[in-house]
């Protein structure tokens, strides 16, 4: 038991299920129309990739999610830093932002479509909004919980307020910021799917809708798996990019 790599244990359930399902379909116990077996998913994947359809959808999806995430994360970070660091800015801006946050983000969809049209802009706006709120709220509280004692070190050694912001506050909130970006990216994918389900002519979300309308469970499942792979890949990229910045932290290795 001790010689078995630990990660193998986690594979028992999914691999076992796949083999059992494949066997059930091959042996004729079930047809697998609504729940296609692994081999059919692979075939569907290859067919989609060969026709070039898959690349188009992935490209459309990634473009939307990355632009939306970039905009939402940037605005959330900047406003969070601003309201966290400045009391007047907090008093002015935070109540309005909290008010907007009370509206479920998806409730904006009709208005976004009226304002921005049914194409890319409204989708990106929705994703950006989904990413914005958690990043904003997290930054605001992270700034406020920076250790006052470290700020005092900066003051004693003659840092200007800007110096303190850049050399103490910013590095101190960095770990929280990275964590917020990671959860923001996850939310970005969630709102992306919502946006694409509500009407798109390309993108993995479109593939989901298309599969449903055509009764192709295999297409749906392939799109779902690709979502999972893309999401995990983006998250890993973020973690790897952040690694050199967070080297000083004890916990960074445990997070990956």
């Amino acid at each position, binding site marked *: 038991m001790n010689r078995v790599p630990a990660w193998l244990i986690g594979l028992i359930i999914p691999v076992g299920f796949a083999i059992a399902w494949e066997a059930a379909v091959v042996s004729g116990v079930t047809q697998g129309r609504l729940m296609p077996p692994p081999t059919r998913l692979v075939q569907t994947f290859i067919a989609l990739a060969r026709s070039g359809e898959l690349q188009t959808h992935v490209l459309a999806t990634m473009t939307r999610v990355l632009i939306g995430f970039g905009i939402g994360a940037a605005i959330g970070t900047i406003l969070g830093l601003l309201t966290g660091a400045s009391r007047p800015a907090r008093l002015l801006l935070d109540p309005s932002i909290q008010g907007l946050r009370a509206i479920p983000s998806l409730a904006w969809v009709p208005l976004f479509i009226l304002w921005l049209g049914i194409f890319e802009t409204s989708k990106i706006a929705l994703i950006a909004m989904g990413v914005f709120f958690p990043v904003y709220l997290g930054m605001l509280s992270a700034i406020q919980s920076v250790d006052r*004692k*470290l700020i005092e*070190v900066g003051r004693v*050694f*003659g840092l200007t307020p800007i110096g303190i912001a850049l050399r*103490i506050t910013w*590095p101190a909130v960095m770990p929280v910021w990275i964590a917020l970006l990671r959860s923001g990216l996850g939310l970005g994918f969630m709102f992306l799917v919502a946006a694409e389900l509500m009407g798109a002519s390309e993108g993995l979300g479109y593939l989901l809708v298309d599969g449903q309308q055509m009764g192709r469970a295999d297409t749906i499942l392939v799109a779902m798996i690709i979502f999972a792979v893309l999401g995990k890949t983006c998250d890993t990229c973020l973690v790897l990019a952040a690694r050199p910045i967070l080297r000083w*932290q*004890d916990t960074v290795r445990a997070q990956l």
Partner: protein
Amino acid sequence: MTRLSISSVGKTYADGTEALRDIRFNAAPGEIVALLGGSGCGKTTLLRLLAGLDQPTTGSITLDDSPLNGTSSAISAVFQEPRLLPWLNVADNIGFGGQRLPPATRAQRTGALLERIGLADYGARWPRELSGGQQQRVAIARALIGHPQILLLDEPFSALDPFTRTSLHGLLLDLWRELQPTVVMVTHDVEEAVVLADRILVMKPRPGRVHDMIQVDLPRPRDRLASATDLMKHRVLRAINRSLADVPSAGGGAPSGFSPWV
């Protein structure tokens, strides 16, 4: 050389708590003054005023007759906790204390200080990889890299074990002899005050006041075990007892004649 003057300094917080009342003393250039007292006697408050982190409500603090307004490059501090910046390596943490130094000087002094504090090979390490005593050494080096005229110490050795504390006392005195800063240190450790200070101000609480001032006229280097040191400790303890007898201690406290610091 800078003369530090504290004239009738009082501090009352916004909630009405009077933390300090009519503190007055001078520190001669290169002198080590210890503020000795229990908790609640405003030692740390006073040190924060000297560091420029807070403003006194009344009175004034002057450096060579110019009033202190906020923090000053002439004043540096070591805190109770090392307070190293966890995202900077050890060398950069030391260099952080020398904000105004030209980079070449800063690098050269960092190297020399790393050597002096016995951490020559630790420059590239992260603070979390160091022991508490090592971290406090780095904090001392950070405070001294800019060659401050006034060095403030806020119970910097109180969290350390006696072995580490004794060796840090030695390190501090060595660096003090070399750089000759005026030192104002806060402590609740009688032995520490007697071994390090030229003068001890015994404080008493609620509000924080100076109760007694004791000149420590022992030759340096001082021997912790010498009978003269012991006599001086007794003198300080008697002053503490007198300060306790004067103050109605909060919540019953210690019976008179017994000092909780012993």
